[in-house]
């Protein structure tokens, strides 16, 4: 027995050692994991390079803030929802809304008008569109399609406002090719970090002159004198204002094509219309028109993506929800809370964008949005149909020799109808930003369209009825 004892104890000892080793390894792994989590909890960034107000290249900022930069780069990825986005060459809107070609008769938007892609493509897609390649366009377009402020500062010799006005008045191609004294291109990047972030403090701020002037006029209308968003706005307001710098209705003012936001009377569709209709707002003393409609001869307006205005009429704005809350929701990276700079449709990110506030399943949330958008879409198509018939009637009356005086009323109604239809069609949310407001606007569009049609029909019937009812009324 004696000689066997050590031999029997060896396997037991080896077993104990293995168990102890495994336990030690497990506890150490846990310890390291805890250390890692604790390290994450210490928020930090490393400032490796200096950025200043002229650093438009987002790659430079990306050295210091790689998380934000990485997600910003993803705006180049293809994304598509039911009613927007697209790949290399997105769908023509007129394929979905054939009436757009009629509405825009005689205007560059009848040439080429595609769905939008991500922020990464804003400059490229502008250069490519036939509206720019085949029609002369001003430097004003770059106000929102490029990271432009350093160019304004350079041209204005330090005065951004002056440079802004100068660049707006240039030819598009001339402004696009602007270079600084050392020959470095000044207009070379789509929207970039410096457009929304102060280079010293990283605080949100607005830079676009059009917005700064526009919001000041709006606030003055609301009774707030001398409003400066960079001084007076709350952080939560800034989380919408930075987007409202560009996702708005605007027009090019006067011969110098100064980008102007028509907010003097408010943000609602009829308040903006009242601004355009008031001749005293314009140098020539006449109501503003974007172009004269080729079929009817009516002086009409073009609406441009009034997302900010439409959102301002909806329940999310009323509840204090900012653009960034849904389009740039917070994501957690370790212990860091980073707002997602992959700006895109919330429908592609329901988990982050919606479920933080709405604790329902993905399918339920997608279903709610689809219901709102499908209803808006149906009503939009119906309005498009009504306005097509309006144009048919106007065109026929004009061909039959109706005079300008006879058509004046119908043309005025066409202007109203078309402005409303386009205000919804050009807006990028298919009604979601403010469902009831969208339906109200489309209801008015249909009404004005049919009124215009009736006005023309009355002309025709009036002519026929004339001998039967002589001089009953004037």
């Amino acid at each position, binding site marked *: 027995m004696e000689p066997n004892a050590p031999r029997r104890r060896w396997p037991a000892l080896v077993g104990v*050692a293995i168990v102890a080793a495994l*336990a030690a390894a497990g506890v150490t792994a846990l310890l390291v994991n805890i250390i890692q989590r604790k390290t994450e909890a210490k928020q930090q960034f490393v400032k490796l390079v200096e950025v200043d107000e002229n650093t438009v290249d987002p790659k430079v900022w990306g050295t210091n803030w790689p998380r934000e930069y990485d997600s910003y780069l993803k705006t180049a990825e293809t994304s598509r929802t039911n009613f927007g986005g697209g790949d290399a060459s997105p769908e023509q809107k007129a394929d979905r809304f054939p009436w757009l070609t009629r509405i825009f008769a005689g205007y560059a938007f009848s040439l080429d008008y595609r769905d939008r892609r991500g922020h990464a493509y804003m400059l490229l897609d502008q250069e490519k569109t036939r509206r720019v390649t085949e029609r002369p366009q001003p430097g004003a377009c770059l106000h929102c399609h490029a990271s432009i402020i350093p160019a304004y500062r350079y041209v204005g010799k330090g005065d951004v406002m002056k440079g802004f006005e100068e660049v707006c008045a240039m030819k598009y191609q001339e402004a696009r090719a602007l270079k600084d004294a050392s020959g470095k291109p000044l207009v070379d990047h789509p929207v970039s970090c410096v457009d929304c972030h102060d280079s010293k403090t990283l605080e949100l701020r607005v830079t676009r002159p059009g917005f700064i002037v526009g919001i000041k006029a709006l606030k003055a209308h609301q009774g707030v004198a001398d409003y400066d968003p960079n001084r007076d706005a709350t952080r939560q307001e800034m989380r919408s204002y930075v987007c409202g710098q560009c996702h708005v209705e605007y027009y090019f003012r006067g011969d110098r094509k100064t980008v102007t936001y028509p907010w003097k009377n408010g943000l609602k569709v009829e308040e903006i219309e009242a601004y355009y209709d008031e001749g005293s707002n314009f140098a020539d003393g006449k109501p503003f028109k974007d172009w004269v409609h080729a079929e009817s001869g009516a002086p009409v307006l073009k609406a441009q993506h009034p997302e900010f205005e439409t959102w301002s009429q909806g329940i999310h704005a009323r509840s204090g929800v900012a653009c960034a809350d849904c389009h740039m929701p917070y994501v957690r990276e370790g212990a860091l809370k980073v707002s997602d700079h992959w700006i895109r449709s919330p429908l592609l990110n329901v988990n982050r964008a919606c*479920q933080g506030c709405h*604790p329902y399943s993905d399918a339920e949330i997608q279903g709610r949005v689809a219901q709102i958008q499908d209803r808006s879409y149906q009503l939009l198509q119906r309005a498009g149909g009504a306005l097509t018939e309006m144009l048919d009637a106007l065109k026929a009356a004009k061909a039959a020799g109706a005079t300008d005086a006879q058509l004046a009323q119908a043309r005025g109604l066409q202007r109203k109808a078309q402005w409303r239809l386009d205000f919804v069609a050009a807006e990028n949310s298919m009604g979601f930003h403010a469902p009831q407001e969208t339906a109200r606007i489309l209801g008015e569009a249909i009404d004005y369209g049919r009124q215009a049609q009736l006005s023309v029909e009355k002309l025709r019937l009036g002519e026929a009825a004339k001998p039967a009812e002589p001089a009953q009324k004037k």
Partner: protein
Amino acid sequence: MVTAIAFGLVGGLAAFTFRYAEGLSYLSSDPKACVNCHIMRDEYASWQHGPHHAAATCVQCHLPHAFVPKWWAKVVNGWNHSKAFTLQDFPEPIRIGPRNARILQENCLACHAEIVSELVHGSTTDEDAVLCVHCHRGVGHGAR
């Protein structure tokens, strides 16, 4: 001898890890223990801004009040939370699960039973019962 050293080392390492991870704090009812993990920062901050801040701490709403159910819930949640946070395998945004929702509902009534006695009849924790927080969402963690 070797066995003793082996287990001593493992035991020491484990004890250090436990202390480093502030293991003892989990035996307390201090709300700060809940925010040991950064993942709970939003919940902690929003509780500080919510109306119940002055009236109730984390455990008063989220753990049963009786001794045995309370410690059993601590064991179950402690295990689930540690596992999830270590492996980082949980879905976000974080949501309360059915077991904890029931505890929460019972705790609403633990304080407010008298005032709602005319409103609430029968079980309020059945699957299709309406929970207090369905309408009173903002009381614990502030308005959203």
